[in-house]
């Protein structure tokens, strides 16, 4: 433990601070800063070592917030059904559950964004019925959102001011932002545009906004999903410090290891109901997972084959950002062979979307930057690339991969027109399109009454299965997927991964871009990481240690973190 204390994020900050932010992330690979990267990584992955300062698991006699019988129904679904739990001052309490388990609804009720249908809450012995977020804030509740509640075109100080009910004068506020952010090891420049910040820095803005109000209860909704391992370590330091100071933390996540690292107690939700309460340190990850999912998981199996001929070559691919808040791709070189799965990791906003757009043809590049099957395709639009066998499935399901108000039949046509011969001379063959949509629905077990239903009527997991299935059934030679299982329930995620592996086994190549490292380690043959628009040279995934991955992913963000 003392070793970790020494090595973990904050104690190293002064040293990292000497590195200039931005471009020369290679510096991290050398010298002392390397330790911070490695240990940041360890902080997440070697969990049993770390203990919360108050982590004896005991709950203080007097609870800060007590929730009883909270129920909230939406048409067709009971989001929360008789939910209850207690949280004491200084306690770090986990709310654990899959997507759709009702975690978000529960915290929205505590934060005054949603009114419960029935049930009661007691805060510090007094009834607590916040009608608005500002009422909740008045009672000492603060919340860090999953999808950030930030404004790109405003600066840090303005964003912080918006979340406060009585903000001080701007100059005073800026001073306090600097002060508090330094104090908690989360340095921030109050004058910077939020749109220019990295995901980790954006989260800091939210946290600082909460901390400036001295909250008694801090709600954090999936805080680590956008952070590098290093940033996670820094965040956990901050949370520990807050907990020591007596702030209760309600920590929402579906990442079990994380919860076992920092939480004192956990409430597990499934389908809107509490299905268990436990001390996460005494449970195995597997036992909690089973409570959370409520079923045995189908673990995908993979036997990597011999890689075949080169399918895709990227030669020094560079694409300028298309707007002031975008990321530029810089000098990406890569070869991908038939039969292999290349995993590309990295924190969100480091060029993942841009890379997919360049590969799909939605953004054009120099002709020879992208060579597919020996043919330069850099200037070709998406459909000619599809004709050649290069298919993509972008991250955003509704509004990019699929049109929300169009039927699944029409959405099948969206990408499959060329390869499935769904149109002749531009005239559409609707029976054939419908048949193809039905085939995707059937093969990939998409739960829907039929292909005439609108895409937006499907759940996230089902739509994702449809989107991936639509590409897989077109028999691609290379399939590029971005975040294939984001926001998808565990069983659907497993079947999507299996489909990708089956595709590779049949001799196609797959590029899987994801922020879920477990997923990448599970299915990839080789691994590379994106960082500020640059791609590391890929390395064989097998035998790659967590430290290696941390080094590949890390770098520039940490330095920016300390670079005030």
């Amino acid at each position: 433990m003392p070793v970790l204390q020494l090595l973990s994020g904050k104690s190293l900050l002064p040293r990292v601070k000497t590195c200039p932010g931005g471009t020369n992330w290679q510096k991290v690979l050398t010298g002392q800063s390397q330790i911070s990267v490695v240990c940041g990584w360890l902080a997440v992955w070697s969990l049993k070592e770390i203990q919360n300062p108050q982590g004896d698991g005991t709950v203080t006699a007097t609870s800060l917030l007590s929730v009883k019988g909270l129920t909230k129904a939406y048409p067709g679904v009971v989001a929360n059904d008789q939910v209850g739990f207690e949280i004491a001052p200084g306690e770090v309490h986990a709310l654990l559950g899959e997507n759709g388990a009702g975690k978000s609804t529960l915290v929205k009720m505590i934060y005054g964004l949603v009114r419960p249908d029935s049930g009661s809450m007691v805060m510090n012995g007094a009834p607590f019925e916040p009608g608005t977020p500002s009422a909740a804030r008045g009672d000492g509740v603060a919340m860090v959102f999953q999808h950030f509640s930030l404004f790109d075109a405003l600066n840090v100080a303005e964003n912080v001011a918006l979340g406060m009910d009585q903000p001080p004068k701007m100059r005073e506020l800026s001073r306090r932002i600097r002060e508090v952010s330094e104090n908690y090891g989360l340095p921030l420049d109050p004058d910077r545009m939020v749109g220019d910040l990295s995901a980790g820095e954006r989260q800091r803005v939210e946290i600082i906004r909460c901390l400036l109000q001295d909250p008694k209860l801090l709600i954090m909704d999936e805080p680590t999903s956008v952070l590098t391992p290093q940033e996670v370590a820094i965040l956990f330091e901050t949370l520990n410090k807050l907990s020591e100071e007596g702030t209760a933390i309600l920590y929402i996540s579906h990442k079990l290891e994380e919860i076992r690292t920092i939480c004192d107690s956990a409430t597990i939700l499934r389908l809107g109901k509490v299905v268990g309460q436990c001390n996460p340190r005494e449970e195995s990850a597997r036992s909690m997972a089973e409570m959370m999912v409520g079923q045995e998981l189908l673990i995908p199996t993979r036997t990597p084959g011999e890689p075949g001929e080169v399918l895709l070559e990227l030669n020094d691919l560079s694409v300028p950002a298309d707007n002031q808040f975008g990321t530029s791709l810089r000098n990406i070189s890569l070869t991908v062979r038939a039969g292999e799965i290349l995993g590309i990791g990295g924190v969100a906003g480091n060029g993942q979307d841009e890379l997919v757009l360049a590969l799909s043809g939605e953004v054009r590049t120099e002709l020879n930057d992208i060579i597919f099957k020996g043919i330069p395709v850099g200037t070709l639009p998406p459909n000619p690339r599809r004709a050649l066998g290069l298919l993509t499935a972008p991250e955003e399901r509704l509004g990019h991969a699929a049109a929300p108000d169009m039927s699944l039949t029409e959405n099948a046509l969206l990408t499959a027109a060329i390869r499935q011969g769904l149109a002749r001379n531009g005239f559409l063959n609707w029976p054939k399109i419908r048949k193809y949509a039905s085939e995707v629905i059937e093969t990939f077990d998409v739960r829907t009454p039929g292909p005439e239903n609108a895409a937006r009527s499907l759940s996230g997991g089902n739509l994702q299965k449809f989107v991936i299935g639509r590409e897989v059934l077109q028999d691609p030679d290379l399939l590029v997927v971005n975040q294939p299982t984001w926001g998808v329930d565990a069983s659907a995620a497993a079947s999507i991964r299996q489909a990708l592996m089956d595709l590779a086994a049949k001799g196609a190549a797959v590029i899987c871009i994801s922020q879920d490292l477990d997923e990448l380690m599970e299915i990839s043959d080789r691994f590379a990481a994106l960082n500020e628009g640059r791609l590391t040279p890929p390395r064989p995934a097998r035998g790659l240690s967590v430290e290696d991955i941390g080094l590949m992913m890390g770098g520039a963000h940490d330095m920016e973190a300390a670079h005030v």
Partner: protein
Amino acid sequence: MDLSSIDLVTLVAALMVASTPILLAAIGELVVEKSGVLNLGVEGMMITGAITGFMGAVATGSPVFGFLFAALSGAGMAFLFGFLTQYLLSNQVATGLALTLFGLGLSSMLGQGYQGVRPPSTPRLDIPVLSDIPVLGQMFFSHDLMVYLSLVLIVLVWALLKFTRAGLILRAVGESHDAAHALGFKVVRIRMLAIMFGGACAGLGGAYLSLVRVPQWADGMTAGAGWIALAIVVFASWKPVWILVGAYLFGGMTVLQLKLQVANIPVPVEYLSMAPFVITILVMVVVSALRGPGFVGAPAALTKVFHASN
């Protein structure tokens, strides 16, 4: 041809008068757009303000009441737009157009019998001392109240957006209504207020046309001024100070064009009359070309429909 009739003093003074209607409408629309709403009904609200202001002034004999009526009726029209777009979630572009078509019809019906009537004149308000300065005094400090008010309004809006919490919230709502909602701001209420402010300003602008600029009532007398105001908001990149520049630029062109008509230069009247429109288009092209494709200047939530799902 006689260009000697064009002297700078009267040109500038006339320019300020000619610009005021557009200035008022544009600064109102800027606030609306800053809140993330595009109201294409400016023309309709202006012409409604023009007739109701005219009627009010004629009925009461007081231009002040006229302007008050105009502001109220403009806000009323805007309320209609706001109710449809904010509560019934209708398409902003289509609803704005509907407002313009409706306003043109409404004003034309209300205005029957007001053709040829002279409104009570709006008194000139010479600013003491300043108006006595030779040349400059006549140019800048010898106008009616509304000219000064429009300038004050520019400064107020600028200060509101830059320095006040209300302005900050308005900008936040226009950037991301979802984030603003998550923080507990009443997105719809804030937008309704902005929309109605915009309507009041457009109404004032219209009334200035019928009570001061012309001063008379004629069917469709706004003749595109509302659309010019919308163009000026784009030209100004949503910055109040540039609204002033844009409006005065356009006012200048209009006045110059009229003077040239009077001066009998050998260009047909029609081509002089269309010049301000052509130049507005050209200016918009130049501005958008200079910005380049990656420019982010408009409020990010502009025209997006907000519906709190839970």
